[in-house]
């Protein structure tokens, strides 16, 4: 190997570098498999490989995955959305209230309206007033939670419509949970949209170099506006999925999810600085976080220990995926 290095100085190092680059880029998939195998070997007697347990992981990660797919667009455009968790909680409450007042269709419309309203407000503040999305959405996090507490009087709002509960989270086709379909369908749409449509390319261009994108004729403000709306809509959908699964709307649903959502995207190879993102990586990232949570619980760790272990594993994975 080293002999060819000397002789064909041009070719070998670049191949080697490509391989190393790929290795780092693919760390999420490698890591996923490694963790899965380790848990399978060590936790088999605790039922890790039991199909019910695996499906449970899918159910628990679906909402994170749905929000993280949209977050991939937000991060790729060089923005961030910290309000997703709170918006999911707010949407679960508005949906539940609308269903009890006017039926399931009104519930779905209320959910979409909630996402749209928050997203437009986030987008408007960020792109027109010029407040960085970090601050806009940080403030929105509190506002959304406050509204959710206020309109629900801090109480859980039950959802009694079985059809809604089945479609949004609770149901299953055979043994396959509906939540898996949501994740897969949105994942495929998200992947194609990011990699193969003009919109996705504009998102990546906006985050990769805003000035350059603008000079190339891209309306970067409109792109940023749209990804923030998209993110809130996804958060509202996640809220509906929470509500359907738990047959109630509560302001606490989705609380703290923004960290898992951002971690899932970053683990999957999406850059926090924009310009680089993959939806497939994000979904695997979300699954990996679910996997880790599940494994740590099965290991019998206390919640405090889980938090520490989870943080450590995420830092390790992100550190390994950094280009040097």
């Amino acid at each position: 190997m080293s002999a060819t290095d000397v002789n064909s100085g041009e070719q070998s190092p670049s191949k080697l570098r490509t391989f190393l680059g790929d290795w780092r880029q693919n760390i999420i998939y490698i890591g996923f498999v490694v963790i899965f195998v380790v848990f399978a070997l060590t936790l088999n007697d605790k039922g890790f490989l039991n199909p019910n347990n695996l499906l449970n992981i899918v159910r628990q990660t679906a909402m994170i995955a749905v929000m993280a797919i949209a977050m991939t667009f937000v991060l790729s455009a060089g923005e961030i959305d910290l309000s997703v968790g709170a918006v999911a909680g707010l949407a679960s409450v508005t949906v539940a209230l609308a269903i009890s007042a006017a039926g399931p269709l009104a519930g779905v419309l209320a959910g979409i309206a909630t996402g749209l309203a928050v997203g437009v407000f986030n987008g408007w503040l960020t792109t027109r007033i010029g407040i960085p999305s970090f601050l806009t959405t940080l403030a929105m996090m509190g506002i959304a939670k406050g509204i959710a507490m206020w309109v629900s009087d801090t109480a859980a709002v039950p959802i009694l419509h079985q059809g809604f509960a089945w479609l949004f989270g609770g149901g299953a086709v055979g043994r396959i949970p509906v939540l898996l379909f949501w994740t897969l369908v949105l994942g495929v749409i998200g992947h194609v949209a990011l990699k193969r449509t003009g919109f996705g390319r504009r998102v990546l261009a906006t985050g990769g170099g805003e000035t350059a994108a603008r000079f190339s004729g891209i309306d970067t403000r409109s792109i940023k506006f749209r990804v923030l709306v998209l993110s809130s809509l996804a958060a509202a959908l996640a809220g509906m999925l929470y509500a359907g699964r738990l047959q109630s709307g509560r302001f606490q649903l989705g609380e703290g999810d923004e960290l898992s959502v951002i971690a899932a995207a970053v683990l999957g190879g999406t850059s926090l600085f924009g310009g680089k993102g993959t939806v497939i990586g994000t979904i695997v990232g979300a699954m990996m976080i679910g996997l880790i949570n599940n494994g740590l619980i099965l290991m019998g760790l206390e919640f405090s220990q889980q938090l520490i272990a989870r943080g450590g594993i995420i830092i390790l994975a992100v550190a390994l995926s950094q280009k040097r």
Partner: protein
Amino acid sequence: MSSVPEFAVRMTGISKSFGGVRALDGVDFEVHAGEVHALLGGNGAGKSTILKVLNGVHTPDSGSIVVGGKPLTTHAPEASRAAGIAMNYQEMSLIPTLTVAQNIFLTREAKTGSGLINDREAERRAGELFNMLEVRVDPRKLVGDLGAGQKQLTEIVKAISQDAKVLILDEPSTALAVSDVERLFVFLRKLTQRGVAVIYVSHRMDEIARIADRATILRDGKHIITAPISELPIDTMIEYIVGKRSLGLADVVRGDASRGEVLLELRGVSGRHKPSDVSLTLHAGEVVGLAGLLGSGRTALAKVIAGLEPAASGEIRVRGKRVDVRSPSDAIERGIALVPEARATQGIIPDHSVAANMTLSVIDDISVRGFVDQRRARDITDEQIRRLAIKTGSREHAVSTLSGGNQQKVVIGKWLASDPDILILDEPTAGIDIGSKSEIIRLVRQLAREGKGVLMISSELSELLTACDRIVVMADGRAHEDLPREAFDDPAAADGDLAHRLQAAEQRLQIKIQEALVGGKEESHVGH
């Protein structure tokens, strides 16, 4: 008379102000179809402003624009592009995280039958365009991984690919190898034969003289003259650009070099890829130039000396003592300072004030118990502003508000603040106007007189010949020849005027560079 418009572009009475500063003052600018029209002027003359008005980035305060016979009333990049205007920006329209092909066809992506983006097709078409230009750039590479020359070729191809009626090239050749510039010129000729109008902006007069049919010169936001290039010899051009004579390079007097002790000595220094086995010495009071084409290893050598790239083998000696330079701070400690090539990204923080930039490299020295001594910061800044004659409203102005030449002076001032013995300047005059260029060259000579050793990289041979006492010709990462400045003087032309002598020397240096290329293997500068 006929339906073919005589003017590809007709801008009349264009005015534009930025916060009270009049960048353009009733400028007329007319470009014929099928000509290469040079747009000239010093920094702050209004060149980039008028181009940005033309391609829709800026909205003019007054005036009218007619493109291809049709008035252009909407001022947006999309509208200008629809009117057939394409422009390369100085490396500003490329997105580092996308591939070359993706960048070239950004917003004009090739689609499959089902409406999805087809990157394979884009790569094929990009490949064809590069082939047409006879240059080698891999369309699948990420732009962020390309060198400056390849980025520039990508920029140019991006502009060309738009099939425009008016093609604006803003400093297209700054990072290109001579052979690539030749191919670009041949290609531009083909375009103009098809009736395309090319607006060509460059600070390199030799290029203008060769490629342009007519030229328009702006100064201080005003239109000065439009004339066929045959009526504008280089001297006259410079005269119009600077507004007064005596700022040509030939007027910089090199003065005597009194060589002092050896400051820097390289013995067989190699980097990971480049440079390879370079030996050279730099004395106090001496300016040594590194000449060579893009990819010849000049910048790589500078980076190794300044600790930005590790040395793979060989030794570096400072004042006779072997040193281990592993990081820029090691280099600074040994009195070595590198003023990098890309000043906007590597040299300055554009949004920070002149003072903040200027004191950045000495922040520890002027701090007392962690607090920056504001008075010393002020004194240092004011001294550098005076010494380098930096034109700025005040030391508190953001560097981004200064002209290119003055920004470069801030970068130099920033490094002078740490009082280095050895100063490495990488393309110190890239993209700045000729008046500021000769000021920078004078500054380089002055620094040498003060006993510093200066290593200077420049692609403009006349600058190297004006500034340097010795010139090292590099190719393929190697130092091929180390020649005193006098070696380039043509004894036959000794009686000619300064400008003439400089021209003769430039030819000789040009030949040396070509010889070095042939002496080493012809090296492709594609990829690293």
